[in-house]
């Protein structure tokens, strides 16, 4: 509203000199011919100035719109790459995320082409305003995809920790059989197991809370619900991260404890690494 008022006032102030010259022109022709000539000259030079100003405003509007669209497209591409690399997301969910991201990318590309080609001020104004409105969709689909990708990474990390837990338990059992005091290591193993379960639960909650969110279609209540869901998922992922960090600390305690039992290491499976872990030739 204020922007429209300001634009209107700006337009009026630019038109004012031409209006004044037009009022003076014909009435004073016989009285002051020299002045009239000068005024007419002024009037003819003012019109191109007005056109030039309008063109400059359109050019500037297009440039700003282009910057914003380009910025969003870069973010959408980066997010799409994250989703593609997320191995732990199932194919159908990944396809849904891909569809949302592609749809938003296509919308922005279409809008950019229309704005770049736009010559009608009213159409351009509407297109420029739609950039701001469409930010709500962008601000939903990008975090939604990031949350899904991060939850997938949590599952990957906890799988690593779980496999390590299996090795560490076997080594701990061997140490216990050899008469070592493994009470602290057993406690750390139990803690590790609890952190793995907790991290997975938080990751699952993050995805479940956001996977079905839909754009708000300018509905403020839906917008607020979406924002609350995204923030809640962010908190779930923060808690998952905390579990992972604490689980990693448990792993460190167990490894250091096992090393202190030397020379009992290693009595469990000590087979060479599998083929895929070897450097590619």
């Amino acid at each position, binding site marked *: 509203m204020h922007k429209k008022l300001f634009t209107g006032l700006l337009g009026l102030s630019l038109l004012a000199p031409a209006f004044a010259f037009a009022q003076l022109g014909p009435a004073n022709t016989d009285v002051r011919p020299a002045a009239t000539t000068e005024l007419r000259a002024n009037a003819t030079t003012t019109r191109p100035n007005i056109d030039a100003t309008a063109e400059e*405003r359109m050019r*500037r*509007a297009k440039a*700003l*719109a282009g*910057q*914003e669209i380009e910025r969003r497209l870069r*973010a959408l591409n980066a*997010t799409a790459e*994250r989703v593609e690399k997320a*191995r*732990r997301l*199932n194919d159908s969910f990944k396809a849904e995320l891909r569809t949302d991201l592609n749809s938003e990318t296509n919308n922005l590309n279409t809008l950019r082409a229309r704005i770049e080609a736009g010559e009608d001020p009213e159409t*351009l*104004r509407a297109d*420029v*305003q739609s*950039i*701001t409105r469409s*930010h709500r969709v962008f*601000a939903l689909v*990008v*975090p939604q995809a*990031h949350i899904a*990708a*991060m939850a997938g*990474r*949590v*599952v*990957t*990390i906890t*799988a*690593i*920790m779980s*496999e*390590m837990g299996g*090795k*560490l338990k*076997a*080594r701990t059992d061997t140490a216990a059989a050899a008469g070592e005091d493994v009470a602290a290591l057993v406690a750390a193993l139990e803690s590790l197991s609890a952190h793995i379960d907790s991290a997975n639960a938080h990751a699952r909650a993050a995805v479940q809370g956001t996977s079905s969110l839909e754009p708000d279609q300018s509905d403020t209540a839906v917008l607020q619900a979406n924002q609350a869901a*995204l923030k809640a998922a*962010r908190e779930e*992922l923060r808690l998952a*991260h905390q579990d992972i*960090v604490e689980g*990693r600390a448990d*792993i*460190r305690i167990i*490894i250091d404890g*096992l090393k202190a039992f030397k020379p009992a*290491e*290693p009595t*469990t*499976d*000590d*087979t*060479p*690494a599998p083929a*895929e*872990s070897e450097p590619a030739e």
Partner: protein
Amino acid sequence: MYISKLVIAIYIVLVLLLGGVGLWAAGAFDGLTSALNLDILNPQEEMAEEQEQPQEPQNELMTGSNASDQALEQDVNQLDAELEAFNESSAELDSSLEDESIEQEY
């Protein structure tokens, strides 16, 4: 007269029933049921097919089942690398949550 007509009718019904059962047993209606796409009839088969596909990779550790001290340290390094990537993703998520549109003029 009435009884004989009744007997003939019962006979015809029995023949039709037996014929129908025979055709069903021979699979003559399979084409019809598949044409109707009665998926709801075989949910167990579909579930069994889905379960046959592995959902996740079984091994994440590059050291496999090697439980030596050295392998465990490599596992920790792998874990740390994943954690670092998680932190990068976390920063990107925060950035996307705080994202604001460039103010447009016109």
